[in-house]
């Protein structure tokens, strides 16, 4: 009977193995600092004051969203404590606030901290401390680098992949284009420009006939537009933040300059860019999108949009619904709740990163149809799909397929 005994032995071995692997995660609750049976502490850093304070609304929306989650019973029965500090967009202050969150408030993770320089300043610290720096609020390309920085993860489609999409479109549809580029002189503008040049490849040097940058402190960019028009370009890539984007669109019309106009999606909001610039001036501008613009009438009866409005009515009634940041924060908050739910009772920092890195085809409310959140152990760029849109009448018209342009950091 040696064969049977052997099989029995193998069977019991398998049983023992099963018991060893499954029982701790089912029966035992595991916590790191910042999580307990009743609470999950989440840290956040926002520029509530200073030059970038317009983005502070993201922190406020997130705070409102977690109030909603708590009112509905929390995440797996645990209440979320959301601690958000102001860093005024200055990196030394960000370091101070991050250390306060991690060492003094003892949060489980820092979520959606805003801005490339502030996040760069704390990236090394967070990775040394092995505290998740999850879903950072910046489109820089460098956050998708799981090998060097396994505790840092991005969120939105990065700037470079967006401009690569425009570059591909130009190469395909207007191969003899003469391109003028206007960009904001900071990390954001330069990241877009780099992606654009990479996308055009060897033809970048001959196709780009004019390149101009402005400082975020300038009151108006009119003179830059005049200069770019003089270059005789027939394609205009507009890498500007909302206020300047509206100025540029208006000035183009005033000068009667009608190039094929590409507008970065940072400034795609109808409410804060297109409307102030004038609908008639914005016809045929091409941009891209990954979430629904709340001011766009085509989503009026959309289910996700109705849910969003209900959430704002109840928890954040004073919100400016034309501000794309409110929608942005709503979506990314859902992303965090999704990850924490998936963690179950294993609320360790390691498991948070593990769950964040194994999101499959997740569709939080507010994304465009077909855009999905996907991550893996080697892909720390949750959102990387965009759809090209063209402005017609009073709304954006989507055209073409959902495009993806993954770039690593």
């Amino acid at each position, binding site marked *: 009977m040696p064969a049977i005994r052997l099989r029995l032995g193998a069977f019991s071995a398998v049983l023992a193995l099963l018991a060893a692997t499954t029982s701790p995660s089912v029966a035992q609750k595991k916590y790191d600092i910042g999580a307990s049976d009743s609470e999950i502490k989440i840290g956040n850093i926002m520029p*509530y*004051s*200073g*030059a970038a304070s317009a983005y*502070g609304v993201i922190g*406020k929306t997130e705070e409102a969203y977690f109030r909603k989650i708590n009112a509905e019973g929390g995440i797996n029965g645990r209440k979320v404590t959301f601690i*958000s*500090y*102001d860093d*005024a*967009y*200055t*990196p*030394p202050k960000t*370091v*101070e606030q991050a*250390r*306060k969150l*991690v*060492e*003094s408030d003892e949060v489980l993770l820092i979520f959606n901290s805003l801005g*490339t*320089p502030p996040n*760069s*300043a704390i*990236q*090394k*610290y967070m990775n040394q401390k092995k505290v998740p720096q999850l879903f950072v609020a910046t489109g820089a390309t*460098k956050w998708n680098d799981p090998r060097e920085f396994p505790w840092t993860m991005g969120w939105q489609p990065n700037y470079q992949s967006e401009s690569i999409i425009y570059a591909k479109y130009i190469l395909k549809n207007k191969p003899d284009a003469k391109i003028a580029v206007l960009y904001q*002189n*900071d*990390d954001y503008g*330069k990241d877009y420009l780099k992606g654009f040049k990479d996308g055009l490849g060897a033809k970048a040097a001959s196709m780009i006939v004019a390149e101009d940058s402005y*400082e975020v*402190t300038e009151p108006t960019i009119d003179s830059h537009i005049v200069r770019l028009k003089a270059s005789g370009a027939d394609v205009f890539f507009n890498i500007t933040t909302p206020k300047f984007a509206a100025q540029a669109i208006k000035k183009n019309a005033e000068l009667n300059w009608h190039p094929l106009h590409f507008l970065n999606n940072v400034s795609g909001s109808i409410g804060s860019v297109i409307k102030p610039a004038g609908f008639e001036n914005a016809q045929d501008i091409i941009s891209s999108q990954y979430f629904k613009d709340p001011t766009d009438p085509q989503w009026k009866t959309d289910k996700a949009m109705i849910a969003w409005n209900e959430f704002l009515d109840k928890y954040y009634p004073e919100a400016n619904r034309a501000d794309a940041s409110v929608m942005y924060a709503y979506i990314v908050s859902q992303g965090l709740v999704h990850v924490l739910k998936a963690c179950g009772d294993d609320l360790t920092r390691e498991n948070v990163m593990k769950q964040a890195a194994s999101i499959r085809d997740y569709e939080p409310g507010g994304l465009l149809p077909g855009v999905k959140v996907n991550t893996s152990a080697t892909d720390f760029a949750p959102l990387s799909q965009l759809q090209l849109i063209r402005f017609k009448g009073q709304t954006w018209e989507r055209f073409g397929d959902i495009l993806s342009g993954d770039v690593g950091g």
Partner: protein
Amino acid sequence: MSAAEEVEVVTEGQAVEAVPKRAMTLGYGTSLIVLAVLILIPLFVKNFIIFQMTMLLIYALAVMALNILTGGSGQFSLGQSAFYAVGAYTSAILMEHAGMNYALTLPVAGIVCFGFGFLFGQPALRLSGVYLALATFALATAMPQLLKLGYFEHWTGGVQGLVVTKPDAPFGLPMGQDMWLYYFTLAVSIGIYLASVNLLRSRSGRAFMAIRDNEIAASAMGVDVALYKTLAFGVSAGITGVAGGLGAIAVQFVAPDGYTIQLAISLFLGMVVGGVGWLPGSIVGSAFIIFVPNIAEGISKGLSGAVFGVLLFLVIFLVPHGARQVAIVAQQLAAKLKKN
């Protein structure tokens, strides 16, 4: 001399109050107590507090540097953030690109900034009072853009900044990085503080103060006004540069956005709150610019700027001479108690 110039000299004299040189420092007893507190605190608090205290010392150094310039020689500067940035970048670049020891980068940062400040002091000689403040203001607004320039990007990291490695404690000392850096900063700060006190008590210091009190009288007495004014600028910039270097090491990161005009204004604020011309007040001023924004934020997130403004207004209104005034009142109280 024209009437307009005369008016200017008079207003300048009023703006920066004459502080006798002995009143610029603390007595021995008080100094020792403050020193003991600064040495002992880190043994009992969390790493995060130690980090905050390190930043406290670093900003105190920068505020003191401005204090030497304004309180000592009567010149205004809103451009200290530029010198701070140059010091920070000098240290960061030397550490990351040249692999230099962090402690050695500090004197280099100091010397580079001294040179920079001295050279900037040359054209600034022709300006005084508010005009000088404006010229330095221009320097502060230009600096972040200069740091972003493509030509320097290879060294400065451009808009992305540079990440700096934090040093470990040497000789296998049993302390964490934060604690070591704190004591290192404390040692540097004490050294610079003592040197500054001595400088102000020396011949040069007397020359600074003579210029502050009355330029014409000073030059009549044989003080080389041009030389000492630029020297004051150089010394102030040099100390600010060392503070910047220390700041870069403590924060582990330098980026143009860290050194905007806001920093210069904060330092100026720190000087006023600490008491213009009173060197020990620098640490009080530094505490004000680090902790009061946090308190303001704790009171109201949306209106933190307004709350900060109200707190600042209260300080200026109640104690217009800053911490120095508080110290004097405390001293008088103590004396009274002793008598009773």
